[in-house]
């Protein structure tokens, strides 16, 4: 599981290496995590997801959606993604 989420982070989704290295959450300035399922960038520090439209991440605070705890663990594979979520949290904190 650890390897898997590392791979996710390194692949960094549709954003290039440059953006992955440089972008942070606009509000907390904490690292962002790419979520493949929803194609969004998630700031775990404040629990907000920022959409990626057409390969362009949108990090304007008003575009962010507040994540409910349940949302982070989708019903289809609850165990899987919530574990990943916890791990990322651990890493970031």
């Amino acid at each position, binding site marked *: 599981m650890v390897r898997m989420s590392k791979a996710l982070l390194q692949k960094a989704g549709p954003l290039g290496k440059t*953006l992955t290295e440089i972008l*942070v959450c*606009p509000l907390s300035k904490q690292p962002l995590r790419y979520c493949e399922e929803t194609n969004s960038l998630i700031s775990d520090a404040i629990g907000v997801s920022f959409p990626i439209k057409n390969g362009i991440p949108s990090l*304007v605070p008003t575009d962010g959606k507040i994540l409910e705890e349940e949302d982070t663990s989708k019903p289809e594979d609850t165990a899987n993604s919530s574990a990943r979520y916890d791990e990322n949290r651990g890493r970031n904190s």
Partner: protein
Amino acid sequence: MRALSFFRRSPLRRSRRNEPFGTFSFASFCSDNADAPQGSRLKIFDRQLKRKQRDRAAWLMRQKDSLLDTVAENLLDRLEDCKKTFPTALCLGGSLEAIRRSLHGCGSIEKLIMMDASHEMVQLCKNAEEESPNDNIETTFVVGDEEFLPVKESSVDLVISCLGLHWTNDLPGAMIQAKLALKPDGLFLAAILGGETLKELRIACTVAQMEREGGISPRVSPLAQVRDAGNLLTRAGFTLPGVDVDEYTVKYESALDLIEHLRAMGETNALLQRNNILKRDTALATAAIYDSMFAAEDGSVPATFQVIYMTGWREHPSQQKAKRRGSATISFQDIQKQFGSQS
């Protein structure tokens, strides 16, 4: 070495046009916001509206806009004066596309990150980049707000902002965030519109509104004065600050063309306290007054755009700085004895 320097005043030559500022609105903002809970967070501009205006501007924008191109070239010209190279550059909102097409390898930029609050504007740049890519520059795009800069601390060598920062509510805050995003010895380059901008339009609006409506409402936004620019740089903590001013006069066929150009640049009124209704006869009266007060002999109407260029560096031990007070070993009187007779 880092001789970007300053205090030149080159009175216009070219023509373009620009945007609004309205001094008369300030007093009312202060009192209206005094009891707002955020305290120092004075809200002057409607940032959401500005985003929409810039979305629209992305569609209206001309392929070549001589005013924007001149400002972008003037700004980037400063990079040529530095020996330092800037591998990673962040370009903030404003005339993004003008900066991109004027780059021509200035400052040996390898990675360019373009950011604007308007998705359409960023998309426009992305499309333009795909059509005519800048050689050897890896360009990436982000939608972001200058007031909430989503950039990691100490991660870029250069921050450029071309005609965007005058729409921020918290200009010092935005500049501080830009400074934090810079690596030590990184350069901050910005062009903002100054208080002389669109003075003709401001006068015409005021006269027309007084005449037709018996009162005035802010039509042109408050803009920074030249002296404020230096203070802003110092307050944001930039070292070796430099400020210089350029004035451009753009000639239009009529005042309505001026408004069209402002729209295409996304520089129309976005004051929170604006009057949402513009009566047709007030608008026409404004155009007529503009024409009668300022028209040149050939029938064109001029509009002034004052651009303030700011440069500042993030501090670094290698930079020159003043010696400690009292550390001098030679008296000024001796210096005067040595050189004074020549003057």
